[in-house]
């Protein structure tokens, strides 16, 4: 690779890269993000490499392993271009046919196509698949087209065009003005206007300034940043370079959580390539701007996603948040002005510079502009990462893109914003997604986690789950958070076990106010949200648990009893064999009965009873029916 010293040289390099590529050459793209890895994309890759070798087709076909495409439910994903045919859940066995039939004979393999869960209709073209069709993949889209370990791929699709424009055609103030005009709000959870934060840092006194990429992504169920970092570290680097120049920072830090090894690896490779090309280091593109980056690993602490805790961690200390003011923009890393932004926020910057503020302002609601990447997970048919314009309704995301709820179950709530967020019920599905809109509904945007829940989800248990998470992750420094969580955890656990007491709800509400008003940082301030939002919309579930010792969703282990319906039981013996405590009595022609005194509510019988019988049912709040008589238990040929 040459060492580029000017924008002209960069353009010459780009032309060179493009001249060596034939756009009409067939190509096979295989998604190789972490989720697809887990479903076997590595084996599929090996199969492709072998088959192409055997067929002598290695130079005739572009075989490219990319980062995450987002349709994680259906991985491994393979796309054949230029036709844009999309194959899902590909296995190594399918590879010879893909090459033999689709590549060579242009024949489509039906069994690998997207099939609508309800109509059975098949779709061959990637862009026609409902999951993709209703998205607007301005930021995430390039993942599909580049090998994250190839800077040339990134340059071939137009990457690193914003950088020379920013460094040599725009003044720092102009860049900040453009980012402000675009109304780019932080995509990590705070939603604070990025341009304004940049301005604070730029205007802060001091020579040495820092920029930081927050890739700590701790919200459970959210993995957007992971996929961006794995799939296109270049766009984040480019955004960071532009921001650093605008702010006047000469050093940048990537804080990548330890649980993301592939993201770190691809980032390290990308940094090496960008350095080699001369776009990191001294006098970048001849602009006089010097910039270097360092990669710092997290070590397993959710609280380090909080700005000031992250800075503590960068300094080698325990991640305990600091009081503000002073804010990091004035006094941050080692006391110097520091600007921290989330991965997705930085990734939006090249787009703004390339196309102007309108790239964001032309989309979205009044105060939420541009697109947002969400991780749509939980009880949903099409699990994955989706990028949509702000202002799209929750209903469209869940049904048009997500394909609705599996198993014919009924939608109950969608949880957004991670542990600091809240649950939104069915009657609010027409809500237009945006920062303020979600906050008004008692939840928040957060980093973009969107967890769908159905009728089998107990909302009290969900509150307990999030509080449990937070008790583990709180730094423990301030009383409202540490002690508040301690007591909330105790109370909610008791309620899910049927030991709710008089005054529990009042205590929870008191703690909620104390935590919100007096905590040191955002983790503490929002720590009671899981309780507040579920109590607001699902009060009846709390009352059932406390007053009737009943779990309406039939989920809380201590409050349910399992019962074998004698009308459905076929005496197949499976549950008897699987019961870990031998609590089921029965024989080959004798209807099975669970001994309630022995039963530990593990749910194994419920899982293993064959679906054609579906004989195991759950009761809550009422005793199970008494056992039928011994004679009635005997199955004769006539009676069944």
């Amino acid at each position, binding site marked *: 690779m040459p060492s580029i010293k000017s924008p002209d040289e960069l353009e010459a390099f780009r032309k060179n890269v493009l001249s060596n590529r034939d756009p009409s050459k067939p190509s096979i793209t295989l998604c190789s993000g972490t989720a697809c890895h887990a479903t076997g994309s590595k084996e599929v890759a090996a199969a492709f490499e072998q088959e192409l070798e055997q067929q002598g087709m290695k130079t005739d076909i572009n075989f490219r392993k990319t980062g995450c495409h987002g349709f994680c439910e259906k991985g491994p994903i393979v796309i054949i271009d230029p036709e844009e045919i999309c194959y899902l859940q590909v296995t190594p066995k399918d590879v010879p046919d893909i090459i033999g039939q689709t590549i060579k004979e242009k024949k489509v393999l039906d069994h690998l196509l997207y099939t609508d869960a309800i109509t059975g209709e098949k779709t061959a073209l990637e862009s026609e698949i409902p999951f993709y069709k209703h998205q607007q993949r301005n930021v995430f889209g390039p993942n599909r087209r580049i090998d994250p370990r190839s800077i040339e791929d990134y340059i071939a699709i137009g990457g690193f065009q914003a950088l020379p424009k920013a460094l040599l055609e725009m003044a720092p103030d102009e860049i900040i003005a453009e980012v402000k005009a675009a109304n780019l709000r932080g995509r990590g959870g705070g939603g604070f206007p990025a341009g304004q934060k940049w301005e604070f840092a730029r205007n802060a006194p001091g020579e040495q300034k820092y920029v930081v990429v927050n890739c700590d992504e701790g919200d459970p169920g959210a993995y957007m940043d992971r996929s961006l970092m794995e799939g296109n570290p270049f766009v984040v680097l480019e955004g960071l370079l532009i921001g650093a120049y605008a702010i006047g920072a000469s050093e940048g830090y990537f804080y990548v959580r330890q649980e993301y090894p592939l993201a770190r690896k691809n980032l390290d490779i990308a940094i090496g390539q960008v350095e080699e090309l001369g776009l990191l280091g001294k006098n970048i593109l001849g602009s006089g701007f010097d910039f270097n980056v360092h990669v710092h690993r997290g070590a397993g602490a959710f609280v380090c996603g909080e700005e000031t805790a992250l800075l503590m961690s960068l300094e080698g200390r325990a991640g305990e948040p600091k009081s503000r003011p002073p804010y990091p923009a004035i006094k941050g890393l080692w006391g110097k002005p520091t600007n921290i932004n989330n991965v997705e926020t930085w990734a939006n910057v090249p787009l703004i510079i390339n196309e102007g503020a309108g790239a964001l302002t032309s989309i979205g609601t009044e105060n939420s502009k541009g697109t947002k990447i969400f991780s749509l997970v939980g009880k949903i048919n099409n*699990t994955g990462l989706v990028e949509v314009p702000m202002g799209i309704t929750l209903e469209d995301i869940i049904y048009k893109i997500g394909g609705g709820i599996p198993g014919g179950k009924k939608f109950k709530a969608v949880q957004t914003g991670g542990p600091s967020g809240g649950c939104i019920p069915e009657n609010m599905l027409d809500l237009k997604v945006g920062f303020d809109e979600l906050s008004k509904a008692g939840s928040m945007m957060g980093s973009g986690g969107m967890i769908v829940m159905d009728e089998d989800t107990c909302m009290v248990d969900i509150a307990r789950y999030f509080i449990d998470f937070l008790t583990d992750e709180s730094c423990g420094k301030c009383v409202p958070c540490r002690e508040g969580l301690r007591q909330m955890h105790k109370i909610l656990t008791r309620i899910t076990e049927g030991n709710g007491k008089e005054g529990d709800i009042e205590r929870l509400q008191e703690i909620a106010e104390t935590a919100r008003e007096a905590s040191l940082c955002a983790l503490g301030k929002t720590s009671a949200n899981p309780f507040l939002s579920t109590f607001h919309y699902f009060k009846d579930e709390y009352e059932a648990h406390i007053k009737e010792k009943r779990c309406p969703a039939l989920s809380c282990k201590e409050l349910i009893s399992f019962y074998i319906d004698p009308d459905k039981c076929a005496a197949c013996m499976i549950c008897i064999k699987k019961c870990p405590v031998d609590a089921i009595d029965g024989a080959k022609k004798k209807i099975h009965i669970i001994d309630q005194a022995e039963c530990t509510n593990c749910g194994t019988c419920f899982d293993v009873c064959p679906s054609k019988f579906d004989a195991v049912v759950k009761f809550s709040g009422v005793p199970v029916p008494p056992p039928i008589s011994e004679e009635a238990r005997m199955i004769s040929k006539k009676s069944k």
Partner: protein
Amino acid sequence: MDIDRIDQIIEKHEGAASSLIQVLLDIQSENHWLPKAALKQVSEKLQVPLLQVQHVATFYKTFSLVPKGRHEVNICMGTACHVRGAGRVLDKVEELTGIKPGETDLDLKFSLETVNCVGCCALGPVMDINGKTHGKISPTKTEKLLKSYE
């Protein structure tokens, strides 16, 4: 773990006090736990009070101050996995191994941890054993899986 190896790791990070977490991560990754002697060596070489090393080593979940088993079992307890029944998988694993999260069995065979989201939400519930991700785990599948490890 070799004192020399620890010194090498410290040197790689240029002996900077702020690299404490990175140094400990490297030691943890190679040695699978942080012996007291390692903490003392790091404290001395990086000129960081042992107190701070201790706080950092206990504050962050990645670090273990006790030896780990041959097989590290991590069960994802992220929200998506939770909603799909990860709790019952955890119950099953606890039953089969006899240990709770954060513990290692007496034979040093299994170490169990819960983790908050590995980012494979489409495959929930997810269990990671020695870095290999297993998706769509059920309590019944768990038994078969764990039995396959020596």
